[in-house]
């Protein structure tokens, strides 16, 4: 398990996605990590990604949560392209519908 900085994690995550294009799978895990220091408990979020061959992880705190989540989602969207698109003949713009929902 390699603990990476957030930026390197995202770069590596891209590589992991590419390495599973032919076969294999990628798991992404979210879990809370808590540390108690001077009677104050600090909660952060551990993000792990693993394929059959490699494991990486990073820790995200509240301050850069949104930034990280946005970047991570973009990576997911770019790479998780083998899911089925919804096909609706009467509705030509399913995407805008989704946005409202």
């Amino acid at each position, binding site marked *: 398990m390699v603990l990476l900085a957030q930026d390197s994690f995202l770069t590596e995550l891209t590589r992991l*996605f590419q390495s*599973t*294009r*032919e*076969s*294999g*799978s*990628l*798991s*992404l*895990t*979210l*879990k*809370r990590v*808590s540390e108690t220091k001077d009677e104050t408990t600090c*909660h*952060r*979020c551990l*993000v792990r990604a693993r394929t059959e061959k490699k494991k990486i992880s990073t820790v*995200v*705190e*509240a*301050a*850069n*949560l*949104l*930034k*990280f*989540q*946005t970047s*991570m*989602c973009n990576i*997911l*969207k770019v*790479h*998780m*392209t*083998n*899911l*089925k*698109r*919804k096909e609706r003949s009467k509705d030509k713009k*399913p995407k805008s519908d*989704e*946005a409202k929902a």
Partner: protein
Amino acid sequence: MASRPASIDEFTEKAKELFESDPAKVRFVLKYKHGEGTMTLRTTNDEFWLIYRTDQAAELRRLEALQLWLMAAMCAVSPESLDAPEEEDKDHPRRRRGKKSKK
């Protein structure tokens, strides 16, 4: 024990409940198989499992919302205070983000 919710909405709802019932132990796992074109979402506290499997691209959006909610909850930020970033960009880009980063 495992439960397989029928829809992603049901999964989302139950996953949030499960997290709130046991925040220290609950983890969320997304497994994507490009070759099969499927993703499996799991939430567990090691006693109870929620499993949802799908091949629908449209559900990625729901997944993102759930991930954001969970990450916020794990960081002990009020999940409701973070709306989907895409919606914020139109009128007040980065406004809430600035507020959060000061914490």
